């Protein structure tokens, strides 16, 4: 089966101010127009357009064959997507909340992730699993978790987390076109917080390339998702106190853009890693180890992790659990005084 490509972006040009969720919809719409192998499915993604509205309008434009509701089974959604991808489609499977993905874990880590390797490259599994993650929305522990580390620990999966509307579109287009399974994790707190210019039509941000969200000289913050804007605020506050902070938005956790990360750390000599998942064995642990292995001699102080605590995600006290600007600022200071 091959893609029936029409004009990329169907002739759309220019930019439009969008929220992140609108940019995500725009990416799917763009690629569904380009490639009839792309189908979107999950719970409530059809007529309703998704519980967060990510698939709004796709059912109307592309019909039930290409945008449809499934029975309430994450294992089924992902297992079916694996079968579709193996057969030659480009499925985009929505898991309503990342907290509900665990029934599909077997299909993700044992099947999608291993299909290419175990078949010696005979069968492949190009598919995207989109799922909202993250806290700060009063969702309690079944609507707030950040479990990206489980997937980063599985060879065969790519893990992508955008932090801006333009990146959300560009990275999602790249993910749909990728030849391997991609976990595309969307921080739900920033779905509608802030808007940005997003190119219409064709707009691809390659996987595996980090973004310098803010340049600085004294300390590097490594982060992703909703934490990037928290770090940017902290950086702005720190600047008033004379600290020049560089913020690196990783964009892709797997494969990681090590070159950008290491160059920034070597430049500043100080690192704070910020993520909202539980601290222990989180992605920040990998970053800390990487820095220790590859550029410890450039460091002026310890690598500091500012993360969620090692508790289940709380409800009432989530403001204490989540890393915020103050905790990031405290982390920055720790790299100077220890």
């Amino acid at each position, binding site marked *: 089966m091959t893609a029936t490509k029409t004009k990329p972006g169907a002739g759309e040009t220019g930019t439009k101010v969008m929220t992140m969720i609108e940019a995500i919809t725009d990416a799917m719409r763009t690629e569904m127009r380009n490639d009839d192998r792309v189908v979107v499915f999950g719970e409530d993604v059809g007529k309703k357009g998704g519980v967060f509205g990510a698939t709004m309008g796709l059912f109307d434009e592309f019909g039930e064959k290409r945008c449809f509701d499934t029975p309430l089974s994450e294992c089924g959604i992902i*297992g079916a997507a*694996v079968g*579709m991808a193996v057969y030659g489609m480009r499925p985009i499977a929505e898991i309503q909340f990342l907290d509900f993905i665990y029934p599909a874990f077997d299909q993700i880590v044992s099947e999608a992730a291993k299909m*290419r390797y175990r*078949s*010696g490259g*005979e069968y492949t599994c190009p598919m995207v699993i989109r799922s909202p993650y993250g806290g700060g929305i009063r969702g309690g522990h079944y609507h707030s978790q950040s479990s990206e580390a489980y997937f980063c620990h599985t060879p065969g999966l790519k893990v992508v987390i955008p932090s801006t509307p333009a990146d959300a579109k560009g990275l999602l287009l790249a993910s749909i076109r990728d030849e391997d399974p991609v976990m595309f994790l969307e921080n739900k707190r920033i779905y509608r917080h802030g808007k940005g210019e997003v190119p219409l039509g064709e707009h691809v941000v390659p996987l*595996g390339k980090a973004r310098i969200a803010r340049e600085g000289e004294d300390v590097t913050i490594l982060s992703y998702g909703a934490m990037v804007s928290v770090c940017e605020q902290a950086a702005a506050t720190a600047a008033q106190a004379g600290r020049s902070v560089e913020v690196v938005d990783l964009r892709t956790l797997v494969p990681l853009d090590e070159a950008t990360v290491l160059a920034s750390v070597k430049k500043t000599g100080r690192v704070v890693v910020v993520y909202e998942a539980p601290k222990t064995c989180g992605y920040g642990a990998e970053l800390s180890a990487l820095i220790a292995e590859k550029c410890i001699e450039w460091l002026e102080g310890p690598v500091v992790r500012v993360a969620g605590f090692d508790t289940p995600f709380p409800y009432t006290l989530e403001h204490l659990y989540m890393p915020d600007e103050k905790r990031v600022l405290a982390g920055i200071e720790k790299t100077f005084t220890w």
Partner: protein
Amino acid sequence: MSLELLTILDKDGKAQKGKDPNLPAAELQKLYRLMVTTRALDDRGLALQRQGRIGFYLQSTGQEASHLGAAYALKDSDWLFPAYRQPGILLLRQVPIDKIICEWFGNSGDTSKGRQMPVHYSFRQANFVSISSPIGTQLTQAAGAGMAARIRGDDTVFMTFCGDGGTSSNDFHTGLNFAAVYKAPVVFICENNGWAISVPSNKQTCSESMAIKADAYGMPGIRVDGNDLLAVYRACKEAVDRARRGEGPTLIETVTYRMASHSSSDDAARYRDAKEYEAWKKKDPIARFQQYLKGKKLWNEAFEKECVEAAKAAIGAAVTAAEAMANPGPETLFDDVYMNLTPQLKEQRQELHDLMAKGGVGAEVGHFPL
């Protein structure tokens, strides 16, 4: 219907009147030869494991009619999402024996590049999707592939297999449910061989049969004598035709028996009554089909000898060739994780290469310090 047992051949190999699908003589002989060759493969596979020449083996002995009769109902363009006890289908689909045996050795001739334990085949040329060890996962994938075919308007039919143990898996429920809801062109074969390693099928379910479970999903459930090739074929042909007509999936339970232990790592004598084995041995699917052919004058000692010797010769030559082949190169360890190597994998490949160059890793005798 789902409690009745569909049978065509009686214990003496006579076909019941009006039920014989009347396959052409050459096809009947071909199917017999395939069953004999499948069993010869199993015998040799286990022997090689016992001799320490391959790491693992898993037999399908006693289940030859069940999986060959099922897959024979398909067109070559139809797809299989198999479990791990249907090796005869590879022969049916003309996968060279050499390729099958290279998989046992995991050598450089193995299509899956030595990435899996023996018998976890993948043969794209045969539309035979890569087998995994987790139980049942292929059922939901077959449903998804069937959904895809419907979306695209293809007339491909998908056949997928599990055992009696597999009916307890999440994916049994999910796969059947999805396939039924979307009317996916899927034929689910549950090969009920009585045992999931050491656990008998009455510990898997309180249902009166496996086939009866189909009722709950809104699809037909057929219970068929799995040691009767003609009955399995007939049930599956109806299900395949139904699927191709766009009428949705079917669940077929083939009632059979695992005549060997679960695998080369298991000893069924520790938990299974020998009398049970003896009773089933009398229902051996190959012997029964042989009687049927004999009745049609399509079998004699000379034909038997020729089938067995041809199988042994082909297998013997393939084993000799496979055993002489090198392992996949060390650099292939890193291939096919993704389409392209990530920077991290490139670095790790270099790290292994450098260590090997110093003789510290992968060499017969290591040196320390490196």
